Each structure stands twice: as C-alpha cells, then as structure tokens.
C-alpha cells in the first residue's frame, strides 16, 4: 500500500492533477479558467508513446522542453502491456513559458497510463482527446510492438521514431516501409536520420566548392566511422550519398568483402568503382567521421569526442578549406524539435529509403563484438 502511494505521488508530481477519464475536457477547462493571464497555443497534437517503465514521467519533462518552441496539445501515453489487469488513468497539466519576456504561453498536456490489453482503449479513449483539425505527430519510443497496427497508424500524420533504439532494425524498417506504401500521407521522421542532418549539410556545403564539385564524379572511396549503436545512421548516410549520386550496388565486388568492417561496393554513373567502408568505434559521437575521396580530392566532416563542433575539411589540388560548424544536439527532444521545425514531407528520407533497405538487408548484421574495433 505504501509503495503504491509513493508511485502515485511521483506520477502526480510530474503529470499534474489526476482526473477521471470522463472528466478530462472539463478539467482542461478548469485549468485555463484558473489562469486567465496565460495564452493557450497549439499547432499540433503531439503524442508521445512508450512501453518502458516510468517513461511517462520522463516524457513530461521532454514535452516541457519541446513546448518552448512548438506549441502543441501533448498526449503522453504509457503502456504496460504485460500487466494482467486492464486499467487506464489520466492526468492533466499545462507547460508554460514566458514568451519574449512578456506573456505566458501554455500548452496543455494529458497523460494516460494504460495497463493490460490496451489496443482498443488507445484508439477509442486516448485519441478522443485530440485537438480537432490539427495534425497528429506521434512519437514512438523504443521497439515497434503489435500496438503499431493499422488502426493506429491510419490516424497519424507524422510518425517519429528512433531507429537507433531497435535491436532488429531490418524487421522494423520493413514494417515502416510497408506502412509508407500503404499510407502515403504518413510522414516518417526517424530521429537517427535527423542525427546526421548537420553532417549531411556540412558535406553538401563542401561540395558547393567548384573543385570538390569537379572531383565529385571521380570520387571512389567513402569511409564512415560510427558508434556501434549508430550503425543505422552510418548506413543511412551511405544510402543518402548513393541515392544523391546515382551509385548502384556492385554485387560482384561485394562478395569479396572479408574484413570485419562493413564493406559496400558501388558503381557510379560514370563507371567509377566506389568502395565504401563503415568502421564501428565504441567511443565518441554517433558519427565520428565521413570521408569522401579520390586521388586528388578529399572531402571530410569529422567530430571529436565531446566536441560541439563538426570539422569540415576540403583538400583539392592544394586548395584547403578547414572550418568548424555546429554539430547540433544528440538529445532526443532537441532532435524532435529540429524535425518539427523542418516541417515538409521528408522527401529526402523517402528517396534514401530503398537504397538504405538494400544496404541493411543485403549485408548480414555483424555481432557487435566482431565489428567493434
């Protein structure tokens, strides 16, 4: 009994007032009536879903950070599917921020904790509380589970997930691919993909240089050094490069791979053989280095462990550029904020996806002990 009370206190402390499910709307009204000086703002419905124990409390803090830049109605959903009894509890609160030092801008949050068989209640009860006419951005945390079914994803406008969390990325990505085909309006937003945004941007910036551009067609070697947890990010980077340049997988050479690193072989439109290697390094940032080179030109973007900057380097025919640029955050909530700021249809992700799935599926996944140097 004592144990249960302390858990309840912790929930209420983090999630606000516990309310009966049937009174959520009424309690939200009361919340706004109590503070007339605040402005209620919302551009999206942001649902944050997790099956991890206690995640709902942590997510309340995450949503607090997100609402600084993105006005939303937040729905926190925590589910314990293993519990034997079916139950549902709800809390309401508001996250307020001072806008430009003047007015208090608030976003309302409804938190749901479900236990037991929850699929029907998730759709019928939780999604009955969406702000009408505003898009639903659904942030799925952790592994995909059977909850992610048609009855759920047909409601979603943007689906945020972090593929670096997945133990079996191929299987989950096949599922995402299928959903993307089935629901063309659903926009997938992979946090792992956002993680490499600044690196892609930095690479593109270097190839603005005419000497790098001239050398682009001769580039025949790619080297990516990544953290083992972020092999997916490395593969996505490689897939992005291949999709942008039109490199095709070269299967004959691929069979010759023999080192513990991931090797991939491509052929460019101009008939140049391109060798790509992904090295996994257990220390440092998700992507530590990406290097694209040929005999007379080297383009690289690197990040030292602990550094907040990316180092952009170009060395072409003696012409050298060496400058730093912000690396961006690795924090999940900030990455979600970045994704929300970008808006759009994420067309680049769709373009990269087929090559990425080919790379992911074409190579057997190596045990981390084998691939880590």
């Amino acid at each position, binding site marked *: 009994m004592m144990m249960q009370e302390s858990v309840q206190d912790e929930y209420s402390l983090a999630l606000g007032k516990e309310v009966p499910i049937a009174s959520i709307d009424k309690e939200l009204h009361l919340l706004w009536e109590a503070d007339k000086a605040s402005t209620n703002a919302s551009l999206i419905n942001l649902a944050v879903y997790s099956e991890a124990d206690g995640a709902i409390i942590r997510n309340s803090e995450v949503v607090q950070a997100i609402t*600084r830049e993105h*006005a939303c109605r937040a729905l926190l959903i925590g589910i314990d599917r293993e519990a034997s009894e079916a139950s549902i509890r709800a809390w309401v609160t508001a996250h307020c921020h001072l806008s430009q030092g003047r007015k208090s801008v608030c976003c309302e949050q409804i938190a749901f904790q479900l236990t037991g068989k929850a699929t029907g209640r998730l759709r019928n009860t939780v999604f009955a509380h969406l702000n009408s006419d505003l898009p639903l951005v659904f942030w799925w945390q952790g592994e995909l589970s059977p909850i992610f079914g048609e009855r759920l994803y047909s409601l979603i406008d943007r689906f945020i997930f972090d593929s670096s969390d997945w133990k079996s990325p191929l299987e989950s990505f096949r599922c995402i691919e299928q959903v993307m085909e089935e629901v063309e309006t659903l926009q997938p937003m992979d946090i792992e993909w956002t993680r490499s945004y600044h690196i892609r941007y930095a690479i*593109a*910036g270097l190839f*603005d240089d005419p000497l790098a551009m001239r050398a682009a067609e001769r580039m025949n070697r790619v080297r990516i050094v990544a953290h083992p947890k972020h092999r997916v990010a490395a593969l996505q980077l490689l897939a992005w*490069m291949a999709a942008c340049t039109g490199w095709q997988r070269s299967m004959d050479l691929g069979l010759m791979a023999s080192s513990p690193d991931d090797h991939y072989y491509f052929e460019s439109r101009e008939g140049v053989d391109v060798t790509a290697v992904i090295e996994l390094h257990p220390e440092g940032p998700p992507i530590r280095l990406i290097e694209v080179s040929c005999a007379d030109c080297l383009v690289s973007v690197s990040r030292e462990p602990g550094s907040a*900057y990316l180092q952009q380097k170009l060395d072409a*025919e003696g012409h050298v550029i060496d400058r730093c*640029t912000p690396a961006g955050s690795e924090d999940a909530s900030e990455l979600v904020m970045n994704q929300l700021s970008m808006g759009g249809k994420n067309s680049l992700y769709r373009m990269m996806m087929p090559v990425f799935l080919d790379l992911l599926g074409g190579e057997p996944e190596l045990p981390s002990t084998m691939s880590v140097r």
Partner: protein
Amino acid sequence: MKNPFRKDLVSRSRPEPCTVVIFGATGDLTHRKLVPALYNLQVEGALPAGVKMIGFARREKSDEEFRQGLEKLNKKVSRSGHDEAIWAEFAQNVHYHQSEFLDLDGYRRLSETLDAIDRERGGHGSRLFYIASSPSFFDDILENLKQAGLNQCNCGEGCWARVIVEKPFGTDLPTAQHLNRVVNRTFEEKDTYRIDHYLGKETAQNIMVLRFANAIFEPLWNNRSIDHIQITCSENLGMEGGRGGYYDKAGALRDMVQNHLLQLLSLVAMEPPTDLSADGVRDEKVKVLRSLRQWDTPELVEQNVVRAQYVAGHVDGENVVGYREEDRVDPESMTESYVALKILVDTWRWSGVPFYVRMGKQLPKKATEISIHFKEPPTVLFNALSGGVPGGNVLVIRIQPDEGISLRMVSKIPGSSLRMEPVKMDFHYSTSFGKGSPEAYERLLLDSMAGDATLFARRDEVEEAWKFIDHIERAWHEVKRPLKMSEYVAGTWGPKDADDLLARDGRKWRRL
C-alpha cells in the same frame, strides 16, 4: 553541374561560394545588420564553405581592428548569441580594404586582392558587392567597379558578379532612372539586387502564402467582398541619433511609402503569379504599381494625400520636442514626418476599393500592419436589432513587431436576446512558433548568393513607384501655392485631416 548532395536537403535556393565586398564597412548597417546576419548564417551552417567578406571603407584600419569592432557589436546584437569558436572561424575570412570611394586605384587593389583570394580558393571568382555606403557614393562606386573590371566575372563558366544596392534607390524618378542607368551600365539587371528589407520579413513573405495557399481567401480577395484596405506603419521614435539631417531631406513619403509600403501594397494587390520565379512574382507586382491612379494635379493631391509634422508632446511617458525643433532639422522645414494617402488601384479586381496608407513618426507605438476590411453583410436579417450588426470582418496581417494574423468576426453574446459583438481570432508567430524568425538580412543575403531575386525590387518596380510618388512631391514642393502642412501632437495617431480623409468616404482608421 549541380551539387548532388544539395538535392532536397533544404527547400530553398542554394547559396554559392563567393566573396562579399561591403562598401561602407565601418557604418552602422554593416556592424548591426550585415555582419551579424552573415555570422548567424555561419552558425546555422548555411554559408557555403569558402565565403569571404571584405569590408571596403575610407578609415585606416587593420584587419584585426576591423574584426575587433565587428566582434564587439556582434556580441551585443547577434540573434543566435556569440560563440567564440564559430566567430574565430568566421573572422578568419573577414578582411579590411582601406580606400576612398572615389579612388580608382583602391578598386584596382581590391581587384588584386580578390584575384589572390580566388587563386587561393581554386578559382571561384564569384563576387557579391554590397553598396551600404551613403547614397551619394552609389554612382562613383558603381563606375569605379566597372573601371576596375570588377563588374564581370573572368573566371569562366558558372561564376558571377552581383551587386546589392541599399535604399534609398534614388530620391525621385529622374535620380532613380539615372542610378538605374549607371547600375545597368555596370551590372546586368539579373545581377542587380535592390534591397528592401521589409520583403525579407517572415510576415511579408507570408502574404503570398496566406493568399494563394488558402482557398478560403482568394475567392474573397476582390472588390466584391473587400470594402477597403489599410496599411499602417507607425513609429514611436523621432529624429534620435542625428537622423534629422537625412530625414529632413527625405520625409515620410520618400523614406517609407515609396519603397516599403508600396511593396507591401503590391503583394496584397497582385494577381496570382504563374510561378514563384523571381520574374513571375515581380511581373505581377509591377502591374499593380502601373495600375495606381496617379494623383497628378495639386488638386488631386490635396484631396487624397495628407502631410503633417509633429509638434511637442509625450511619447512613452517622455516629453518630446516638435519636428522643427529636432536636431539637424530646418526650423522652417516643410518636410513631412507623417503622411496619409488614399490610393486607388485601377484593375478589374480592385476597382472601387481604396487602399489607405499612413506612415508617421512619434506616434503612440511601433507597429506595421495591413488590415483587409471586408464588406458588411446585408443587414436584412438583423436590421430589426437595436444597434444593427457591429462592423464587418477584418483580416489583419501584422508585419512588426508582434508578427501574426488575426481575423475579426461577429459573434452572438450569450443570453436569451440576440445581441452581437465583434470577436477576434488571433494567431501570433511568437506563441505558435517559439523559435525566433531569422533576421530579414539573413534571408536576403542568402538569396542574393543563391541568385534568387524574388524578394528584391526590379528596375521597373522602383521606377513605377517613383512615378506615383513624384506627382505628390511636385504638388507639395513645386507649386506656387504650397499645399497644407498639418500638425499633430507627438504621441497621437496623426492629424485630424488624416481622419477626415477616411471620414469623407464614410470610413475610419483602424485602432491599433
């Protein structure tokens, strides 16, 4: 050849590596706006690698002294804060070039410096000249750029030489035409960027999105549904910081209406462009300016334009002096610190819909906004009610300082009787998008590097705007019987004559 890695990375024009040369580099604009804008672009990784900046000015300075001055102000004004590491990288690419604007030899030395940079960089050769000096030097700078051969790119295919010209672009039609001739003798029109920083503001850009991406507005955007449109730019400042010298030669009409407010008017009034290309948009804007009914006699000016000067009053709780008592203002000045105009756009769409434009100094608050006043609904249904229907719908596009959009509509007051009151639906950028908007100069600098001239004024736009303004200026200053100069107390919303201008049409200024 296109950079394959730029594809779909960001949905905007791709900036190209270049050297930016700023004329008037020791001035306020460079320190407060241009360099912080370039720095912020660097922070966001939006500047292509290899961009260099050269400040061209008359004072003796070393590179280091120049950088230190820029850094000092960047720390104060930069939107994204000041990161020492990023600044150090940025500052490495900032150089100073000392020369008189009239000294051709200085431009030849600049040419050598640029060539050396290009050799070191591997032959980009693209150059962006930003003329941020006093307008009196525009001609000489352009002429000397040509004499030194800097107006063209000599580094082969793909490189370019462009010029950005700050406002004011001329002081009347003849001077603007002269300046246009000089610019076009020096640079091709496609490489000429006449800057109007209002067009770099998010809300100004949003006007087109609001109109053309929302199916509910476009069918109503005409004389069948709209009664009139008001554009207001009010400033709560006077002639602080020695501004009186410049302002007394320009006045409200030439300083603000000719460029900023007519640009906003043309965005509101234009027809949908066939595409979003620079010329597609500018073709439609210039058609609006060509359609402005000309107030080309003193009588028409007297009927449709009000000018005024402020007299001593209170603004923000402070005593302020009258316009003619301001520092560097002629005590006999006949320059207007306030202007209100009725403008008619003679097109099929806008026939009979007046645009009321007003701009003034020392008004109660700082605000720029466009309000679209829809016609009132037929009162047949509610005409038995006492008081009738309270006003029509008003759509307000706020440009600054609190960017946003609001829509006024009529609603029933709760209760058993049928009584109605106007209510407002309000959208604020600041509350809905917590993230600050980029400075207008950031967008405009990036666009000019990318060769996207959509948000810059074309030659014919500038000249058409001056044609309209010149008739009014002539009526004010070149007729034997000077037209009336009204007065308003500082801290009020302008003279009574401006209220009368609308009252004659049965309308009144929107309360801000």
